[in-house]
């Protein structure tokens, strides 16, 4: 049992740990490379998907930073730019793997979290402009990302190659109609839609349970996000900025992952290979999400016990 205050003490290790993982996974022999991407570290009993862990550590890091440097974050440029650089460094390590999707989620999460924690607005705007231009550069600089982008604009232009996944995904939504084809009724999972168990699981759910099922699933996740956010607000009122920021960070991670994934599956965003929280296949993902939920639950437990540390 690790209390919130214990987490706060340990949080000093979060950023170095994230950086260390980011470096380790790049070292051949330690990092596992599949299809040209080194995102995994093989442990005796499980394969750890590193970016997921790094994201979690970054949430802890920002929560710690906000708790410690609230004043300078809200008033000075340096207070905003410093965590910005730290996160940018972690983002760069992710890009080395390369994992553009996780990097995008991390950067977006960090920006929102800093914003909601009261970062000085002028400095924050500068940070956003910097972040967006960097993202755009990386997206355009890499041909396969560019292909994903263009196919997003017109998936039916080349439905057998670059547009293949998206068209198959859209077909699943169309086939599902409002109430779906029923359990096991999915055609797209019969090898038509690749990654149907991970990135495109929402499409398959839509095909089998219809628009109703897919929207209900997103609604449930959004309800979860709101409950966590409310806990963050309560913790903030109780004068526990670490707990408050961490809870909001978790809420943002879940919300962003849900939205980015569903946006790309329905063709509102280019496919960046993200997964749907708690639904997509992936051991590390589920594990870290559960850890985050556990920590959030602990915040509530500590609050009720009146032990929420300042």
């Amino acid at each position: 049992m690790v209390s919130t205050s214990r987490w706060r003490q340990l949080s000093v290790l979060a950023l170095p740990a994230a950086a260390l993982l980011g470096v380790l996974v790049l070292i051949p022999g330690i990092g596992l490379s599949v299809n040209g991407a080194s995102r995994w570290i093989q442990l005796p009993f499980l394969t750890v998907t590193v970016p997921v862990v790094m994201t979690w550590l970054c949430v802890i890091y920002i929560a710690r930073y906000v708790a410690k440097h609230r004043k300078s974050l809200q008033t000075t440029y340096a207070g905003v730019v410093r965590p910005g650089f730290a996160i940018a460094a972690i983002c760069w390590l992710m890009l080395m793997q390369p994992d553009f999707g996780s990097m995008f989620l991390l950067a977006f999460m960090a920006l929102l979290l800093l914003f909601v924690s009261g970062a000085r607005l002028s400095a924050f705007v500068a940070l956003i402009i910097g972040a967006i231009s960097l993202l755009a550069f990386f997206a355009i600089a890499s041909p396969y990302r560019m292909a994903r982008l263009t196919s997003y604009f017109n998936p039916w232009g080349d439905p057998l190659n670059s547009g293949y996944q998206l068209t198959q995904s859209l077909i699943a939504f169309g086939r599902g109609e409002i109430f779906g084809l029923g359990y096991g009724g999915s055609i797209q999972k019969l090898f038509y839609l690749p990654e149907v168990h991970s990135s495109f699981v929402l499409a398959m759910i839509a095909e089998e349970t219809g628009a109703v099922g897919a929207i209900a699933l997103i609604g449930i996740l959004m309800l979860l996000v709101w409950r966590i956010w409310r806990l963050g607000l309560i913790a903030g009122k109780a004068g526990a900025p670490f707990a408050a920021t961490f809870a909001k960070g978790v809420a943002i991670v879940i919300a962003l992952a849900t939205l980015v994934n569903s946006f790309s599956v329905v063709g509102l965003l280019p496919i960046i290979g993200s997964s749907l929280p708690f639904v997509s296949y992936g051991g590390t993902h589920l594990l870290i999400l559960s850890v985050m939920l556990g920590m959030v639950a602990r915040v509530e437990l500590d609050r009720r016990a009146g032990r929420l540390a300042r």
Partner: protein
Amino acid sequence: MQSWRDIFVIALILLGALSVAGRIVFLATVEQEFLKNEGDKRAVRQESVLAARGRILDRNGIVLAENQSAYSIAVRPSRSVPDDAQLRSIASILKRDPDELINRVRRASGRDFLYVARFVSPAQVAKVRLLEIDSLLFEGTPTRDYPLEKKAAHVVGLTNVDNRGIEGAELAFETNLSGSPGKRYTLRDRLGRVIEEVEQGVSATDGGTLTLSIDSRLQILAYRSLRSVAGFSGSSSASLLALDPETGGILALVNLPTYDPYDRTGMSPQDMRNRSITDVRELGRVIVPFVILSALESGEFQLNSVVDTAPGLLRVSEQTTLSDPRDFGRLELSALLREQSSVGLAKVALNLPNNALFDTLQKAGFLEPTGVELPGETSGRIANLNLNSPAPIESAVSLAALANGYGISATLLQLTSAYSILANSGVRVKPSVLKSAPVDSENVYDASNVNSVTDLLEISSKNAKWRDAHVPGLEVYGYGGFAEATTAGGGYREDSGSAFFVGFTTRSNGQIVVGIVLNGALSAELVNGPAKVFSRFVSTAVSDSLDQTQ
């Protein structure tokens, strides 16, 4: 502390969630039809459903052709092929040449598909399967089972590899037999495996059952009778045709040589020809009864009218003189039939009104195909015919020759059909191979004249000329003759030709008309062969059917 920033971020997330929800609803409603259609294009395949080919039955419902499954054995050389030892085992089961098979598989290396063998019986396939060779593919193919095999091959015919009729009734009634294929729509996964059948298919309409006029029992008897005699008569080909004179139904049709519908490699076009309807031969004396009939029909002659054949010679023109083997002297018309006096027959013909003989022969159906449903029917002809003239046969030579059976040719079906008019008291019936064909009949001759001729045709054990055709205990009628083969140059070969016999039974005995021809080198066996076949066939056929009715 609930700042505007919290509200902003929450609103942003909510907006995102609503956009997704809106987009999902849009895809599931507005875009639904397009997307479903695109999905079906990828996952739904149309395939045709084979219609079952109709059965062919004989007049008593006995199966002459029905469906069965044969198998094809194939390999995909681009993936893997059996090794040489395995191929040898396969070849030995299928009774094929092992080296040929090995070479064929080797030559196909790299190809996507190769048939190792087609039309393999289920039994052989079971043996090949026991070899457990993974690289073999087995494919069921619809094919036909012909229980009478080569005994009825020319009537029933056969189908090709695509199960379409290419010979006989299978070809003639292809449309009825084949039915129309259906369509089915199947849902397939990306690897092409069928997941389920989806609705909206069109079911196949199976082919209809075809009932032929053929009687299997008579068909088999005919085959045996013909083969037993044709064998030692030295004939190169032979045909037997049995008709029901009242309905025109063909009861049996056999040609030798015939072919085995299961042995596609051994088939030759010669053997597959349905000679009794495709081969036209000069008829010779077998038409004499029609000359007598013509004389009676003209009213110029009675049965007892006397024709003077002395001195056994008749000069028809400058170049042509007919001669009899001896001087028959004065012969009654009825005796001409027995003696076959060339001079007498010519004199009768020359004394008839000039279109009488032509008229009789035309009414007998010698000038046009009978219209039987089987494919490939041809028609005989009368030589030196001028249809625009009031006297179609102008020259005396032609007329004299025609009265002796020269210059007139026909198929066995035409000949047998003509004799069935005699058996039928002057009513001509269109022959048919279908049991339920509407009877298409026309009264062409005076019944009393026909009956007068028929009486002359009765065969008894004492009847010297056609004694071989006698059937003990049965009243039979018939006539025959030998015609020398014609040569390309218009002359005759004295050493070979066609021996005919056409006979019939009375109505009380289950009337049947049987025409037989043997072609080959001239010999006593050949000339007498058809009458022997007739006797053998009719004695068994009629006595069996009498047993059955009793």
